[in-house]
């Protein structure tokens, strides 16, 4: 336990150090970088280091404590960003749950039927090459036409569906690999007990798949956040962090630090989702040999 605690402390320490390093690099570039951007070998490649393009870190941080807009009733930015992040987090969570259910179901199906794997997998790969921006308005308009048994499609659900769309793929592929990782001898053992396919799936294949599923679910979790944020931006859904990013970006000339507050909010959102998966990982793998934990 003590060893685990020390390892956790070490990891947290390294994380903080890496953040500090990026912060130092940012401020260092502001000191030495060209004010109006620069060219290397005739190509404009060096970013501008002026305060409009690269505000000081302390300006970004202090911006959190200031009101969102000028005016008497404006809330402070940290609250606005937090509320936006919470809104998007719930959408991403719905998307993640939908996406992982579909991904896991597809993986199980592809494990059960070889023909499914051969027939389906190429389509799954192709599905990920469709640009999300192009897909977003389609999903919104399809959803808007859905009225089944008194169920009307809420607008936010389109964003969740797009989150699910990005989440299901890594989960399906990772779970498929995991389900197939069960050793042949163990499968033979289950056969010798005349275990049904379902028993083999739940007592052998899924437990054996967990080390493969965890990294896949982490990718899926951050995918669901990206999907939701992009969907918010491209469908104009209000209330979430994606909307804040696009709004604040428009005000970047007058208030350059503002957009970064929302960008950090989105990053924190992705970390929170990945953190949830890590928590599940720790709980599921606590009794496994240490080498296989990720």
């Amino acid at each position: 336990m003590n060893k685990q605690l020390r390892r956790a402390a070490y990891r947290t320490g390294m994380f903080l150090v890496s953040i500090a390093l990026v912060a130092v690099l940012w401020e260092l570039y502001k000191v030495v970088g060209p004010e109006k951007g620069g060219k290397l070998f005739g190509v404009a490649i060096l970013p501008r280091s002026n305060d409009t393009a690269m505000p000081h870190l302390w300006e970004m941080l202090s911006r959190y404590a200031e009101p969102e807009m000028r005016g008497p009733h404006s809330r402070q930015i940290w609250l606005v960003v937090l509320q936006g992040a919470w809104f998007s987090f719930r959408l991403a969570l719905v998307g993640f749950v939908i996406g992982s259910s579909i991904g896991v179901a597809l993986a199980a199906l592809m494990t059960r039927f070889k023909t499914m794997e051969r027939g389906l997998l190429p389509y799954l790969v192709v599905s990920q090459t469709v640009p999300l921006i192009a897909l977003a308005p389609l999903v919104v308009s399809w959803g808007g036409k859905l009225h089944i048994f008194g169920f009307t499609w809420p607008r936010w659900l389109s964003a969740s569906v797009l989150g699910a769309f990005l989440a299901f793929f890594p989960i399906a592929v990772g779970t498929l690999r995991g389900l197939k990782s069960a050793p042949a001898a163990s499968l033979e053992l289950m056969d010798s007990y005349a275990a049904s396919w379902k028993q083999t799936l739940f007592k052998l294949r899924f437990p054996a798949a967990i080390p493969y599923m965890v990294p896949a679910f982490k990718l899926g979790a951050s995918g669901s956040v990206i999907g939701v944020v992009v969907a918010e931006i491209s469908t104009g859904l209000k209330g979430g962090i994606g909307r804040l990013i696009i709004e604040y970006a428009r005000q970047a000339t007058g208030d350059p630090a503002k957009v970064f507050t929302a960008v950090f909010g989105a990053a924190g959102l992705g970390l929170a989702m990945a953190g949830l998966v890590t928590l599940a990982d720790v709980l599921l793998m606590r009794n496994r040999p240490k080498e296989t934990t990720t």
Partner: protein
Amino acid sequence: MSAVHVAGVSKIFNQGTPKQVDALVDVNLTVEPGEFVSLIGPSGCGKSTLLRLIANLLEPTTGAVTVNGKTAAQSRLDQDYGMAFQQAGLFDWRSVAKNIELPLELKGWDKEKRAARAQEMLELVKLPEFADLMPWQLSGGMQQRIAIARALAAHPPLLLMDEPFGALDEMTREYMQGELLRICAETKTTVVFVTHSIPEAVYLSNRVVVMSPRPGRITEVVNVSLGANRSEDTRAADNFFSGITAVREALRGTHADHANAGAVRGVEDR
């Protein structure tokens, strides 16, 4: 009623293709209840294939396999046998006791009954205090003992073993052989045992079935006259060595057509 009856069995893989392999041709074998029978022979002689046919993990191309008077398929469904492999193959995510309970769980036993049986099996393999440990906390020999406990958990009348001690060091291996004999005597289990090792086959068996490859077939059955009570002293006994010599000669005989075969490849001579 014999425990295992194999009648006129052949197994041909990839029949009718250029990759056709005659794994077994016209095999006949009867194992009586309570008997310990080893299958020995060089790689490719079909001994593992024969074991899997008895276990109904493979279907014979021709012929019939009967286990406890039933078809092999029916006795697999009835869990009439337990199986152990070279790798213990315990599930990492289950405690030792839960691993032993696996076959009982699949049979639908309730929790108390399962736990009681698991404890009984742990005592049988002399690891009673290990119930709550995880498999990776055990040594290789202990893991293999748990695998045997798992194979015998449902009290099957027949135990099928595929080189179960092949991955163990020599000391542990001899200890495990003694333990296996004790366990089989206590539980009156019939055993079909695949091995590469001549001394192991002789020490454990009532009969040693000698097989040869291309095509896989039984060439000779050596009766071992070591009696029921075998101990570490048996390993120094004269009839132990004469048994080893008999099996070795039977194995060489199978290689007479492969000229100059001084040692039999794939069979350990220790």
